[in-house]
């Protein structure tokens, strides 16, 4: 199934997901106390090496993941320049880059199954207030299983739509997509109930 994470056996892949997330949260807080742009630039260079220590491929993928936000960050910088706050603009933009790149690093080097295990563990306290976590785990699994199916279904529907003569699919395609999914949902819930329910 589709996932962002890279397969690998580097040190970052082998360290525990909980540890990586804790480190990420700590660094994300600490980064707000750094108000020197040179220091932040060094952080960014450090992150490049961090990615490179995993593999060159990780560095490339990390760059790709950053591409969509570069424009946004550029826009923020322009606004700060227009206000004449050159330095604080640079600091904010660098800080954003560091934060996003670090968070992406954790995602790239963590397996989906490990992340899910940790997520369900974090949800454990919900049991104390009487919320069962088993249905949440079931729902997570269902989304992972069904999303590719639904994507395929949407593609088929728009293909048959085009085969009937409409050159471009427009918003109306959403209605049949929803209706088929609603029918699926009814059948799947019946099937789950038939097998003993949640």
């Amino acid at each position, binding site marked *: 199934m589709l996932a962002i994470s890279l397969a690998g056996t580097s040190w970052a892949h082998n360290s525990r997901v909980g540890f990586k997330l804790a480190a990420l949260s700590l660094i994300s807080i600490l980064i707000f106390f750094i108000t020197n742009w040179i220091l932040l630039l060094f952080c960014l260079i450090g992150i490049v090496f961090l990615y490179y220590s995993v593999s060159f491929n990780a560095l490339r993928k990390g760059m790709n993941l950053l591409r969509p936000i570069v424009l946004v960050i550029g826009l923020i910088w322009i606004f700060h320049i227009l206000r004449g706050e050159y330095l604080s603009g640079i600091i904010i933009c660098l800080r954003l880059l560091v934060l*996003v*790149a670090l968070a992406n690093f954790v995602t790239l080097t963590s397996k*989906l199954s490990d992340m899910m295990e940790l997520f369900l563990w974090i949800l454990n306290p919900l049991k104390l207030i009487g919320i069962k976590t088993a249905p949440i785990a079931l729902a997570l699994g269902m989304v992972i299983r069904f999303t590719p199916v639904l994507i395929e279904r949407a593609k088929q529907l728009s293909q048959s739509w085009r085969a009937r003569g409409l050159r471009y699919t427009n918003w109306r395609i*959403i*209605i049949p997509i929803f209706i088929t*999914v609603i029918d699926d949902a009814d059948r799947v819930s019946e099937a789950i109930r038939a097998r003993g329910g949640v």
Partner: protein
Amino acid sequence: MEKNIVYIALFSGLIAVLGLLPKLTLVSGIPITAQSLGVMLCGIILGAKRGALAVLLFLSLVALGLPLLAGGRGGLGVFTTPWAGFLFGFPFAAFVTGYIMERLRSLPISIVASFSAIIGSIFILYAIAIPYYMIGAKMNFFQSILTMSPFIPGDILKCILAGFIVNGIHKSRPNAILSWARTR
């Protein structure tokens, strides 16, 4: 119970599917995706609680590392940008949209759906996203509005489309509009 869980799960898959639909380019030249339309439809069709849960489930999977956001984005990084206020606002948007939907049952469904989408998925969403952006990017109110304004026509268009879409679904599967279902 089973029905609720399955609807929540499949609708959160639908949010992902809508993110993959080809982009629409408005007159203003800003590309809009149908992803937030998915959030509106979750609220409208599933109602307040289930709609918000479907969106939360979707966001959890994005955070865990699935590239379900429009443009194939995902992972923890998308939650650290100043634009993440939109993501954090999505569950609230779906909740309010669904809540209004549940309260107004006597009017035609397309009108109620569009109205609740405008309140929940524009006003509430931007009321969360704008302050978040102001803090995250250190911008003032007017600069933030200026940055986001190109997206607002698209959002209004999506609210109107949501009305037509829900009308179509209601005609063929009236029982599927859980927000309007008589029995809970």
